[in-house]
C-alpha cells in the first residue's frame, strides 16, 4: 500500500523506524503489497500525536492517564472488551425464524381450508367405534396385541 511506502520513507519517530526492519520495508522494495503484516490503527499521525509518540520514548510515569489511553488507541482500534462483545443479532435471527414459521403456518391453514377436502367418513367417532368392535369380535392379535387388552368376560378394556 502507498501508506506503507510513506511509512518506510518519511516518518521520523523511533516507533516507525523499527517497523522499517519488518516485512513492510520489503513490501515497498519488491512492490509486493500483500506482505504488510501489521498496521497500527492510526497511521498518519497529526503533529500532536507525533509529539505524544516522542513523549512515549521517555519514562511512562510522566504520561497522564489520558495520554496513555491515547497511545493505546493510536495502535488499537478496539480494546479486548470491545472486540469480544457480542451483538443483538441473535434476536434478529430468532425473530426472522419465527416470522417465517408463522408465515408457513398461514400457508398451512389456507391449504387446510381451501385445498384439502373432507376426511373420509370412516374416521368419524361412530365409524371408529364400529371398527374397534369388529376388531374385538375378530380377535385381532389375541396373544400379545390388541385383543389381549380386552377383557372378554367383563366386556371392557383391561
Amino acid at each position, binding site marked *: 500500500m502507498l501508506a506503507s511506502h510513506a511509512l518506510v520513507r518519511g516518518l521520523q519517530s523511533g516507533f516507525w523506524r523499527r517497523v522499517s526492519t519488518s516485512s513492510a520495508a520489503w513490501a515497498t522494495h519488491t512492490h509486493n503489497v500483500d506482505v504488510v503484516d501489521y498496521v497500527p490503527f492510526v497511521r498518519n499521525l497529526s503533529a500532536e500525536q507525533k509529539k505524544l509518540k516522542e513523549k512515549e520514548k521517555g519514562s*511512562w510515569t510522566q504520561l497522564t492517564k489520558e495520554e496513555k489511553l491515547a*497511545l493505546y488507541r493510536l495502535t488499537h482500534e478496539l*480494546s479486548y472488551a470491545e472486540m*469480544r*462483545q457480542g451483538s443483538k443479532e441473535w434476536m434478529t435471527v430468532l425473530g426472522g425464524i419465527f416470522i417465517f414459521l408463522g408465515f408457513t403456518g398461514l400457508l398451512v391453514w389456507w391449504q387446510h381450508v381451501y385445498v384439502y377436502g373432507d376426511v373420509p367418513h370412516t374416521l368419524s367417532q361412530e365409524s371408529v367405534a364400529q371398527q374397534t368392535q369388529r376388531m374385538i369380535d375378530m380377535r385381532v392379535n389375541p396373544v400379545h396385541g390388541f385383543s389381549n387388552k380386552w377383557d372378554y368376560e367383563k366386556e371392557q378394556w383391561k
Partner: protein
Amino acid sequence: MFRAALQLSVSGARSLTRSRPQYTASVAARSYSHGKQETDEEFDARWVTYFSKPDIDAWELRKGMNTLIGYDLVPEPKILEAALRACRRLNDLASAIRILEAVKDKSGPHKEIYPYVLQELQPTLNELGIPTPEELGIDKA
C-alpha cells in the same frame, strides 16, 4: 505454568505454580509420543530469554506474543515481565497494555488468574508506569 489451572479446578492459582501436578511427570507444550518432553521450567526459561533479548525488534515482540497467546496456557508472570520490559525497550506502551488485556482474555472462566498475575507484576507495572486496562477504563466495552 497455568496449564495445570486450566485442567484442575482448584482455587488459589498461586499454589499451583509451586506444586507439580501429580498425574504427570512433566507437561509439554506439545505432546509427542517419543522424544524428550520439555518441563515447565524449561518452557518458561526459553520464553524469558526470548523476550529478554536486548535488541529485540517490534516484529519479534509481536511474533513472540502472538505465539505465546496461541498456546493453551496463561503465561507465567516472569515471562510477562520480560515481555513488558521488551515493550519498554521498544517504547511501545500500547503493546504493554494489550499484553495485560490478553492475559485476562486467556484466563477465560478462571477469574482468579488475572488478579494474581497483576499482583505479581505490580512492582514492574509501577516501575515502568504501565497502567492496567481497568485504570484506563477499557476493560468494559
